[in-house]
Every structure is written in structure tokens, then in C-alpha cells.
């Protein structure tokens, strides 16, 4: 029998090996000094790993408190105010999109066209900002934050997506984690265009609630 890997030695030390294999490994250990020495080390290490991992009581108590708060709340909050805001935003967006005199946005140019085109004057971006309705303000803010001269062909601009706080293209618990850590004062403020979800000008617990609900909906 060839020498035994550490995972098999660990299994042997925990009596998890099947009978025949266990016999073969034990027989090998009788003949192989190196494996026998390694077996002793692996057993001591595994034992130490189990012993050296305790849980700090203070931390656990704090987390218990946080969990009690979570359990005290309804799982899916049906808050009237956020729902009304969301409905109003949706209606405003529909009205804006249905308006006949609204200039149609140009189709997205190819990267080569962006590279060849002269830089977009900043003033034009500002005029567009004024024409927009409040409902699409978040999107326009993103437009305004994109200086045309920064549009380089090798770095295609990607619009910020409200809720995608960590900018990974997904809206998930990782975004909520980033937001929570900011509220705990442990990270710098995220971009309001993606984090100020209720549009009240502040990144606060209200935004966390909205994000949590959106994640729960599987957005």
C-alpha cells in the first residue's frame, strides 16, 4: 500500500473508515514510520482545532439581542408608506414614458462610435436633467455623474443600478451587508445613486428596509 493522505488519516483517527480500508491503513501504519508519525500529528492537530474554537460570550449575547429583534418583526413588512412611494414612482415613470413630446433617447452607440465621437458637452447633460421628471431622477443623476470626457472605449460605462450597493451587478444579501456596515459606521458612505433607495436624501435604515424587501422578493 502506498502512503496515506491526511484526509484518510483523519478519518482513521475518528473511526470513520470502513472496516476493510481501516484494516489496510492500520497495517500500513505498522510498516511506515513516516505515516505513523503523520497520523499522530494529524490526530493532535484535529484535537487542537476542536479545543481552540470557543465562542466569545459577549459577542454571542450581542448577536442574540440582534436576532431577537429580527424575530420580533414580521417577516415581510407590509408598510404603507414605502408601498405608496413605489406606486407613485411607478405611475410617474409610466406617465413620463407615455408623454408624446418626450425626446426619445438615442440608441446606445457602439464602443467604436463612442471612441470616435466628440465629447458630449456638459451643458447638454444639465439640460436633460431639467427636462426629466422626478421619477427618473435617479437615472439622470447617474447620467450627470458620467462626464462624457471620461467615456473611454476600453471602460464601457455601466449605469448604476439602485440597490446594487457593492456594484457587482447583483442585488443580494451582499449589498445589504455593505449597507449595514455603513450604517454601523464601519465603511465609507456608498454611492447615493445606488443606496438611497427611498430618495429621501439620506442613506439610512429606511433604505435597508427597502433593500431587504427587494431581496426577499428575489429581485
Amino acid at each position, binding site marked *: 500500500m502506498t502512503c496515506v493522505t*491526511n*484526509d484518510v488519516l483523519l478519518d482513521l483517527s475518528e473511526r470513520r473508515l470502513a472496516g476493510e480500508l481501516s484494516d489496510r491503513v492500520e497495517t500500513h501504519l505498522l510498516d511506515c514510520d513516516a505515516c505513523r508519525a503523520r497520523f499522530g*500529528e494529524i490526530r*493532535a*492537530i484535529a484535537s487542537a482545532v476542536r479545543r481552540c*474554537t*470557543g465562542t*466569545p460570550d459577549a459577542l*454571542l449575547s450581542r448577536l442574540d439581542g440582534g436576532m431577537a429583534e429580527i424575530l420580533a418583526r414580521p417577516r415581510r413588512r407590509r408598510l404603507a408608506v414605502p408601498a405608496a412611494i413605489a406606486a407613485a414612482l411607478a405611475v410617474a415613470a409610466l406617465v413620463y414614458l407615455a408623454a408624446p413630446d418626450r425626446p426619445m433617447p438615442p440608441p446606445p452607440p457602439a464602443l467604436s462610435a463612442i471612441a470616435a465621437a466628440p465629447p458630449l458637452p456638459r451643458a447638454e447633460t444639465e439640460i436633460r436633467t431639467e427636462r426629466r421628471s422626478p421619477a427618473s431622477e435617479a437615472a439622470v443623476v447617474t447620467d450627470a455623474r458620467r462626464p462624457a470626457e471620461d467615456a473611454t472605449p476600453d471602460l464601457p460605462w455601466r449605469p448604476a443600478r439602485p440597490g446594487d450597493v457593492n456594484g457587482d451587478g447583483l442585488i443580494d444579501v451582499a449589498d445589504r451587508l455593505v449597507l449595514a*456596515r455603513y450604517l454601523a459606521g464601519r465603511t465609507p458612505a456608498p454611492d447615493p445613486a445606488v443606496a438611497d433607495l427611498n430618495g429621501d436624501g439620506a442613506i439610512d435604515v429606511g433604505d435597508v428596509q427597502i433593500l431587504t424587501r427587494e431581496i426577499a422578493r428575489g429581485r
Partner: protein
Amino acid sequence: MDASDEGLMLRAGAGDREAFARLYERHKAPLLQFCLQMLRNAEDAGDVFQEAFRYLYIHASTYRPTAKFTTYLYRIARNMSIDILRRRRRWNLQPLDPALDLAEPPDLREPRLESDEIEAGVRDAMEEVPPSYREVVLLRVLRGMEYAEIAEVVEAPLGTVKSRLHAGLEFLRRAMRRRKLAE
């Protein structure tokens, strides 16, 4: 009444908060230990721990017992931990948290001679083990999970899990040897 993890989770999904509280009580200490050892930082571990349970609670109604509850729980916590570890690497943050020594267990320990040194050595050596190996070592040694379950948690083939366990234990073993030589 079904008091298994899966049964409690199904009841939690139907709105039984007491069932979820029982699940929390049952798994909180082992999960926190796992998070602490994965992240080596008490605050990050606390964040992941709380977010994992919050995520479970919010999604309880969508839970289907197609796998063991612990697989589900540890996969959530593991993915969140990996996310933090990636961010640390991106920002070059220091993972070591001196406060983690608070995680040293309790007063009920029997007096030992060399084993205390081994414990301290393992605690330090765990820093050197890459996260993808460390998580397998912790799930297998600390949680006693079967290989098949670990494979589901870390989303890797069975053979990969075994080779990572071998490599992780080898890291620890060599670190311990270096430590012994240095003394």
C-alpha cells in the same frame, strides 16, 4: 411534532417563530465558531452570522428540504464569508483580530501540558491556511460533516474536498513543525 432541523425550518416557513428560535439556539454556537475561524475577525464574523440567520428567516417560506438544513445554513454563511475575504483581499485589509483570542474556550478545560502549546500553535497556524482549505478543515474537523455534505456547502466535487482537506491539514502540520523548530 417534527423537531428535526428540516421540520423546524418548514414550520418557520409557515410562520412559526418559535420553531425558528429553536433552530437559532441549536446552531448559533457552531455557526459562530465557523464564522470566527473562517474570518479571524470577531466583527466580521458577527456580521456574517447575523446576516446568515436574517437571510434564513426572510427566505424561510421558500425553503425546501431537498438537502440537510446544515448544508443550507453553512453554504449561506460560507458564501458571505468568502465575499468578505474577497473584499479584504481587494482592499488589502488585515484579517487578524487580536480580540479573537477571546474565543478561547472556557474555564472548563482540563489542565494540559503540551496540548496548550499545540492549541496556540494551531490557532496561529490557521492564519496560514488558505480560505478554500480552511473552510473544508473546519467543516470536517470542527463540524464533523460528511464529505458529501461539505461538497454541497462549498460547491466542489467530492475529490476536490478530500484533496483540500489533505492540503489544509498539511498546511497546519508544516506550520506546527516550523513553530516547533523555531522554539
